[in-house]
């Protein structure tokens, strides 16, 4: 049907909605957009807000998104919704935290990978596993 447009709302952790609808309203960064079928291709960021989907004349469904990306193809609308609250500052903070943890953890370690040590350690672990397998096959006999 040409007077409907496929709306898909997905988040990284699950699929939220996938249906043919008549019209979609979404909180784009530059202001709310209303999308009818055969809209021109557009891609934009979303602000936190409500997405309203007009399924038919008297049925409207609302979803809250905390941000994300909206992609429009002439017969398909894709909303990649964020699950986490995203602010540049917040992301920066998270990044710094991950780096700080790394520095703290690696304080007492060399900056170069000691490949020989790595190998010998892996070999040891592999040998232990082999030994266990061997013991097991022996005990079966």
């Amino acid at each position, binding site marked *: 049907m040409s007077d409907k447009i496929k709306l*898909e709302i*997905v*988040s*990284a*952790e*699950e*699929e939220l909605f*996938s249906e043919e609808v008549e019209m979609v309203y979404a909180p*784009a*960064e*530059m202001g709310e957009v209303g999308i009818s079928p055969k809209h*021109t*291709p*557009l*891609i*934009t*960021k979303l602000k936190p807000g409500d997405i309203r989907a007009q399924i038919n004349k008297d049925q409207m469904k609302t979803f809250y998104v905390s941000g994300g*990306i909206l*992609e429009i*193809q002439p017969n398909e609308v*894709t909303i*990649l919704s*964020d*699950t*986490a609250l995203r602010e540049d500052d917040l*992301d*920066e*903070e*998270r*990044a*710094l*935290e*991950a*780096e700080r*943890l*790394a*520095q703290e*953890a*690696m304080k*007492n*370690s*060399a*900056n*170069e*990978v*000691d*490949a020989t*040590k*790595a*190998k010998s*350690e*892996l070999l040891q*672990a*592999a040998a232990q*596993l082999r030994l266990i397998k061997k013991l*097991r096959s022996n*005990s*079966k006999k």
Partner: protein
Amino acid sequence: MSGSQEIRSQIASIQNTQKITKAMEMVAASKMKKAQDQMSKARPYAEKISNVISHLAHAHPEYTSEFFVAREVKKKGYIIISSDRGLCGGLNNNLFKLVVESIEEDKKVDIKPSFSLIGSKALSFFQRIGGDVMAQTAQLGDKPKIEQVLGLIKSTIDNFINGDIDEVYLVYNKFLNTVSQEPVIQKVLPIKSEEKNSDYDYYWDYLYEPDAETVLESLFTRYIESLVYRGLVENLACEQASRMVAMKAASDNATDLISELQLIYNKNRQAAITQEISEIISGAAAL
């Protein structure tokens, strides 16, 4: 022959261990189911975002992103996803082996490695062997949220954009089925631009709001995030599957051991009884 009492207490202790391994096996089985669920739930997003990216490759954006630019490689970044806990067979070790091999290969052509580590096991491994670690995060639990790895990803991407690292690889275990997992190294940055499809020869481009750079940058960041997240859940499913198999093997071993010890114990007991009877008989005969 060791004393009957000793054997009996040994059997009891093995039985206790077996109870634990059996419980762990069952817990791992149910957690694996959940992890698999999470894996399939994450699939639509990954598919959609790759769709959008492939649409984008067919469009003719005027802005070319740094995410696509291939540079001469002097330093490689690895995002390594490991488990937080042990007792899961050779899962993590196989993964690290693959990484070490790749590092050795690169060393010959003078490429240096740099790491972003997810999971306690990866961290403790690199603490022991050393390495240039950019960022790390651990203790993500059984139901990881994408929030927990955002910082690590951002710091890795920033390093890529700054030019500190020239390529980024994702290392994780791929879930094939319950009994087999395969460690893989997957290139995530620069993003491989797809071959242009000839069906799309005519010129078209998206409208970008507010502008191409902002939108595309956040799109690509999310793309990388979705790749890492998928790796994370997949690795989690692998961990549980691997633990389940390891614990099953341990329980079976315990059963074998118990039956062996039981046999020795019974023999001992029989020997003791026989001896006692023969003593009584010979005593009676002497009377």
